[in-house]
C-alpha cells in the first residue's frame, strides 16, 4: 500500500458503503431512497415510513402496518405460533431450517405472514400483512394456512378481510407445497365471494410471483401503494426473456392503474380512512330478522 492509497482507501471505502446502502451512520438518521433527504428516523416512523418531503414509500414492517390500521387496543394476533416445517429437507447453500431460524431472529416474526383480528373504526376486521424481511415475504405453507384461516374467520364472523402483499412470490424451499397454497387461498376467497364477504387486497412494494397471482389480484377491490412494483414475472426475468429494455415505470402501480389491473392508488397515510370508507359501502346492512 503506497501513501496515496493509505490516504484514499478508508475514505473511498466509507463513501462506497454509504452510496450502496443509502444509509447514514448513527442509526437515528435515515436517507430517503426517493429524494435523498436525510430524515430523522423516529419522525419517519411516525409518518409510517413515508418521506415527509417527497412522499416516497419505504418498506414498513407487517406488524407496524397492522397496528397502524386497526383501532388502538382492539388488536389480537391470530395463530402467532405457527411455524414452517421442512417437508423436503431442503438444502441449497444453506439448510432451509437454518434460513428460517436466521429470518426469525432478524425479523422477530415466526414466518412471513402476520394475521390480526381487531376493529377498524369500530367494525370487526380480519387483517393480514406480509413481512418482506422474512425470506423475501415468500408464501409457503404457513402463509397459505394463516391466510386461509383468516378468510374462514372472516366468513364465520361476516367481517371483511384485508391483505397487504409485500412478497417476491412462493417459497421455493417448500416446493410444490408452496405452489398449492395459491390454490388453497384462492379456494377460500371463492367461498367468501359466494357469501358476499368483502375482501380488499393492498399491493405494496414489491408484490410479484405467486402472491400477486393468487390473493394479490383477487380483491373485490385491488389497491396499489404509490410506485409499488407489482407483476407476475420479475422485471429481470422479463428483460432476459424479451431481450429489450423495459419501458419507464413498467409494472409500477401507476402502470397497473392505467392498464386496468387495480382500482386505485392510495397513499399509506390515508389507507386507514380509505379502507374504512370503502368497507362502509360494501358491508351489507344487517338484515331484519
Amino acid at each position, binding site marked *: 500500500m503506497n501513501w496515496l492509497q493509505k490516504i484514499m482507501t478508508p475514505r473511498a471505502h466509507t463513501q462506497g458503503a454509504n452510496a450502496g446502502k443509502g444509509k447514514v451512520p448513527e442509526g437515528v438518521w435515515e436517507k430517503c431512497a426517493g429524494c435523498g433527504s436525510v430524515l430523522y428516523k423516529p419522525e419517519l416512523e411516525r409518518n409510517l415510513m413515508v418521506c415527509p418531503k417527497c412522499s416516497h414509500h419505504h418498506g414498513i414492517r407487517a406488524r407496524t402496518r397492522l397496528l397502524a390500521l386497526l383501532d388502538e387496543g382492539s388488536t389480537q394476533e391470530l*395463530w402467532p*405460533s*405457527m*411455524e*414452517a*416445517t421442512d*417437508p*423436503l429437507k*431442503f*438444502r*441449497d*447453500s444453506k439448510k432451509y431450517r437454518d434460513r428460517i431460524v436466521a429470518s426469525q431472529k432478524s425479523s422477530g416474526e415466526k414466518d412471513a405472514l402476520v394475521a390480526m383480528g381487531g376493529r377498524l373504526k369500530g367494525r370487526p376486521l380480519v387483517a393480514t400483512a406480509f413481512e418482506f424481511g422474512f425470506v423475501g415475504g415468500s408464501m409457503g*405453507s*404457513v402463509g*397459505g*394456512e394463516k391466510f*386461509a384461516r383468516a378468510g374462514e374467520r372472516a366468513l364465520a364472523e361476516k367481517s371483511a378481510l384485508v391483505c397487504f402483499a409485500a412478497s417476491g412470490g*412462493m*417459497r*421455493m424451499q*417448500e*416446493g*410444490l*407445497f*408452496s*405452489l*398449492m*397454497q*395459491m*390454490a*388453497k387461498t*384462492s*379456494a*377460500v*376467497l*371463492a*367461498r367468501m*365471494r359466494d357469501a358476499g364477504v368483502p375482501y380488499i387486497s393492498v399491493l405494496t412494494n414489491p408484490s410479484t*410471483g*405467486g402472491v*400477486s*397471482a*393468487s390473493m*394479490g*389480484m*383477487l380483491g373485490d377491490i385491488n389497491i396499489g401503494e404509490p410506485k409499488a412494483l*407489482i*407483476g*407476475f*414475472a420479475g422485471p429481470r*426475468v*422479463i428483460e432476459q*426473456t*424479451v431481450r*429489450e429494455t423495459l*419501458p419507464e415505470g*413498467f409494472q409500477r402501480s401507476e402502470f397497473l392503474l392505467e*392498464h*386496468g*389491473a387495480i382500482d386505485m392508488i392510495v397513499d399509506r397515510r390515508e389507507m386507514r380512512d380509505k379502507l374504512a370508507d370503502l368497507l362502509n359501502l360494501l358491508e351489507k346492512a344487517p338484515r331484519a330478522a
Partner: protein
Amino acid sequence: MNPNFLEFEQPIAELEAKIEELRHTSHGQALNIDEEVGRLREKLKLKTNDIFRNLSPWQVAQMSRHPARPYTLDYIGVMCEEFHELAGDRMYADDGAIVGGLGRINGRPVMIVGHQKARDTKGKLRRNFGMPRPEGYRKALRLMKMAERFGLPVLTLIDTMGAYPGIGAEERGQSEAIARNLLEMADLRTPIICTVIGEGGSGGALAIGVGDRTNMLQYSTYSVITPEGCATILWRSAERAKDAAEALGLTAPRLLELGLIDKVIREPLGGAHRNPRSMAIRLKAVLMNQLDELAALPVDALLEQRYQRLRRYGAFQE
C-alpha cells in the same frame, strides 16, 4: 449424437441404429440374421430397463421436456372419437399455447383444455413454446365456464415451463388471469380432473390445475419453479439445476408420497414417446375411471370434497 435422444438415452439410440442397419442389410442379401436381430432386441429391452430403473430427478426433468414427448393434441387424437377445437378468449386473442375444445371419449361428451407445445420451429413460435399469455388462461376459463353451464366434465392436460414472462403478458394482467382461474376452478360446479403430461411449471401450470384429482405421468414433473430458475436464485448458477431438481422433489412418485397428487400413471418402457398410443390409452382408462367416481357425487358434495382437498395442502406446526 441423435438429437431426438437425450444423453442418457444414447445407448438406446445406438442399439436401435444397429438393429435398423442389420435389417437393412438383410434386404439386399439372402443372409438369415433374424437370430442376431432378436438378440439385439432383447439386449435393447434390458438396456432400456436398466437405464430407466433409476432415473435421477434431473433426468426425469429432461424426460418431461423430451423433444419427442407427446403433447396435448397427440393425446386428444388417440383418446377422443371426435374433437372440436374452440378458439379465443372473446376479449383479445387466441393463444396457441393453450388449446381446448369439445370432445367425446367412449361416447361421453367432455371439455378438454391443455397446454400445447410443438416440435418444429414454426409451430414452436405459434405455440410460444407452450408458455401461455393471459388470453390463454382466459380462453381456458371461458371453456370451463361453458362446461359448467352444459354439465360437461373438464379434463385438463398440463405441460408448460411456465406462464410467459413478457411485456404484453404483464400489461394484460398475467397475474390476474392466473389468479382468476384458481378461484373459478375451486368453485366450478362440474368435475375437473387435472393431469400433468410433461412439465408442470409453477403458476402457469396450476392455472389449469385446480380440481378434484391430480394425476401425473410417471416421467412428468410438477414444481414451484424450474430447476434452472431455482438454481439461478439459490445457487447463483443455472449449472446447478441438477442439485435444484433433487432438492425440489418434483417427480411424480415423490409428490405422491408427499400427498400432493393423487395418482402416478405408469409410462411405457423408455417413456411416453416410445409408445404414445399405448400411453394415451392408459391415460384414457384412468380418466374414465375417475370420471365415473366423480360423476356419482352430487355437485354440492363434489365441491365440498374439492374444498377440503385444497384446504389440506400444507406442512406446518404450531
